[in-house]
């Protein structure tokens, strides 16, 4: 009981202490060309960040062109007629900042930051590349970044022990043709096949104002920022919104799926995976907290059983990664030397079944709620991280100020909710088991 009241107290006080203005934008408006703009003023540090969120990701790729959305993202940094290749980064780094991006299954997000006096520079860069990128584009730039991306793939997959895991899980969880079947990095063959024409078509289809949210965050004067946004981004030509391929919910897995692979490793690693709820879906918060109860840190169920008590695993974790079409819920454990993968898997399934049968204690739920909340707030410390969050909320929840509601939906999860969703979503008959084992002769 002491834990429950303490936990509730903590959550309540965090709610009032969280500075409301940090979690909400200052101003939201739309330009004449359809571009959505969010301003978030914050003078704590003499810095600005400009984020451009494009609603296109690897799920929108054509067959034979996996990895293209991410490859294209690289090309946005290769210059325009007004900004020679390399100058964009030189400018922002001279401004004490950085220019980067990431691509996922559902979105491509560009992130620039620099000292406050570089606000116009950052907006000029963004507006210019959204308008004139193709005019300075050529096969040499494509060839160069194709090499870079293939090295990125080697680093993350080909050359990393157990590196193929996420790719193999994706292929097993989602049917061929589903936007989540392949990984964002794509395949070497498809990257090699990408052409300059593909690049031009992709840009013209997806990089249109109505498909973009821009966030400007940090130390600026609101009126001046609005002027600069209109000046540099208002001229991006208006164009029709892209039609995003509708991907129907796949039928559930017919039965448990087993995938075996080998790698140059010393011990096997066991992955159990399920499809999970979509981002912001009703069950998502409860499933995420359930995954944390199972596998987040030393107080988790899987750690206690596999690492601490039975000494079967060297390490273990569980997480939910959710996108707009669905989620991936994964529990992964590395075997201790001499422990067979089958024994590890059996123990993992037993712990998951136990959580399905008996809901967690209120204390356990309060623990992971606090942990998640602290982690969430830590993720908002920098002005560029906040800018990204506003854009994500704008496009996925339709509300850039969603943060406080987002926090609330995790606080609302009860122990009974967790028990129910674990039973629903982690059914053993709909699991994928991937075991990566040492190659023969090792």
């Amino acid at each position, binding site marked *: 009981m002491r834990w429950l009241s303490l936990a509730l107290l903590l959550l309540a006080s965090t709610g009032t202490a969280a500075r409301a203005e940090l979690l909400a934008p200052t101003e939201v408006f739309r330009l004449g060309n359809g571009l959505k703009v969010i301003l978030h003023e914050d003078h*704590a540090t003499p810095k600005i960040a400009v984020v451009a969120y494009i609603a296109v990701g690897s799920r929108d790729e054509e067959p034979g062109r996996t990895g293209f959305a991410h490859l294209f993202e690289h090309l946005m940094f290769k210059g325009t007629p007004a900004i020679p290749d390399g100058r964009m980064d030189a400018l922002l780094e001279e401004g004490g900042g950085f220019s980067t991006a990431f691509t996922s299954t559902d979105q491509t997000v560009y992130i620039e930051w620099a000292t406050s006096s570089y606000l116009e520079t950052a907006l000029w860069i963004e507006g210019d590349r959204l308008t004139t990128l193709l005019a300075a584009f050529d096969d040499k730039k494509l060839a160069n970044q194709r090499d870079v991306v293939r090295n990125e793939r080697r680093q993350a997959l080909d050359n990393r022990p157990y590196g193929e895991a996420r790719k193999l899980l994706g292929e097993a969880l989602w049917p061929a043709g589903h936007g989540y079947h392949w990984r964002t990095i794509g395949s070497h063959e498809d990257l090699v096949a990408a052409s300059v024409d593909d690049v031009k078509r992709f840009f013209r289809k997806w990089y249109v104002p109505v498909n973009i949210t821009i966030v400007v965050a940090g130390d600026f004067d609101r009126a001046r920022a609005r002027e600069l946004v209109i000046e540099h981004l208002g001229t991006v030509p208006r164009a029709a919104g892209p039609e995003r391929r509708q991907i129907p919910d796949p039928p559930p897995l017919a039965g448990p799926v087993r995938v075996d692979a080998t790698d140059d490793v010393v011990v096997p690693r066991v992955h159990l995976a399920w499809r999970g709820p979509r981002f912001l879906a009703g069950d998502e918060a409860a499933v995420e907290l359930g995954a944390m109860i199972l596998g987040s840190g030393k107080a988790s169920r899987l750690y206690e059983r596999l690492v601490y008590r039975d000494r079967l695993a060297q390490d273990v974790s569980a997480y939910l990664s959710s996108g707009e079409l669905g989620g991936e819920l994964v529990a992964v454990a590395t075997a201790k030397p001499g422990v067979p993968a089958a024994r590890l898997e059996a123990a993992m399934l037993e712990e998951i079944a136990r959580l399905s049968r008996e809901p967690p204690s209120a204390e356990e739920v309060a623990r992971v709620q606090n942990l998640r909340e602290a982690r969430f707030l830590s993720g908002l410390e920098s002005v560029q991280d906040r800018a990204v969050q506003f854009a994500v909320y704008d496009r996925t929840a339709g509300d850039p100020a969603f943060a406080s509601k987002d926090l609330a939906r995790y606080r609302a999860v009860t122990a009974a909710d967790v028990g129910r969703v674990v039973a629903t979503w982690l059914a053993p008959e709909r699991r994928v088991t991937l075991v990566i084992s040492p190659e023969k002769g090792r």
Partner: protein
Amino acid sequence: MKPRSLVLAFALLAWPALAAEPVPGPDAAFTPPRAERFQLENGLSVLVVRRPALPLVTLALVVPGAGSAADPAGKGGLAAFTADLLDEGAGGRGALELAREIDGLGARVRIITDADSSVVLVTTLSSTLPRTTELLATLVTAPAFDDAEARRVRADRLTQAQLRRDRPQELAADLLDAALYGDRAPHGRPVAGDVTTIGKLTVADARAFFGRSWHPAGTTLVVAGDVEATRLRAAVAPLAAWKGQDQPPPAPVAPALATPPRLRLVHRPGAAQSDVALGVASLPREDPRFFAWEVVLNAYGGGFTGRLTQRLREQLGYLYHVYPELHLHAGGGRYSVLAPLFTPVTGEGMKEILALAADLGARPMSDAELRKAKQNLIRALPGRFEDNTATALAFAELVVGGLPDDWYARYAAAIAAVSAADAQEVAAQELADRLAFVVVGDLGKVRPQLRALELGAPQLFGLDGRRR
């Protein structure tokens, strides 16, 4: 052959501002955060940096001398093992009970050991600060050092060491430090120990190490976040109960080798990339040339516009990213870069890496390149204090380095004063011709590529880290 392409490479940085490019206004004034200091009765120093933006606090309990440089002979890994045991039981609570308590506070505890120190790094919600500091005090005043837990942790750490062959980048980094400092030197040995030493560590060893190396009088608690000094004094009061032995002598620091072996090779059959770790000994912060050195390293491997990335990635497509790191300790340090190179161009990539370093020592940087490096360092400074953990660690570095709290306040002016001649001089003295390399890759394909590099006879190691 003087690489003409280098001239072309950096011409881009020397473009005059183009017609359409906006001209930034004057920089906003920035004063780095100031720390308030006070001391507890037991000699523990507390440094507080108030950052009220979010309801979070980071605490870093910095214990200089409790690092692996103080590991006794034959007991490599003891400092790290001792640190690892601190959250495995304390104040009558067992390992899992402690873990639950920490989670319940919305806190996260990591204990980081390097050659020079151990740091207990705690992040927490400001609403749970008093209970968190009470828990932190318990870890150091009443550590359990339970024999059964120690055996379990030791077994895990031994397995981790055995599995290092599946972490080739870590292996490369370890072999590089060993090359630069000497395989058995305090800063050359792996912090975690190795498979010959870890298995012999006992709980009695750990308890003894804790007693002689962890002590309040030499320790600083750095606190950054939503906290103000008065309430913090009350919150840290439980730490005053920590009694230690008299402050031990400082841990031995042997300087980097004057002539380290310049090439170490490890065979990893079928590797699609070569994990290449390269590095040199670093000037310490106290050296008057340090600021010129920072500028050189920024131009060489910093950010996206550093020479390494521009040449190896954007021009040649040989790799995805480079990962530079500067690690400083009293009297010196080490600058290193991890460069995962596509296997067929490993030799070519290393040739470029060497040429770029040589060029920095052979010719002064252009005005544009110099300005970019300096302005990057100056203007990026505010961002280093934007989050609590980075802020706490920034001040922790000063504590471990024995530097004054206001060091960052003088940083911008010191960087601004660096000239191209200063940078060229320190590059010629400290970087050019001094890089040491470790290559973990498919030696069948890679070794022939390295012959032309003139790095001397390579030393061969296995994936187990042992000399062949």
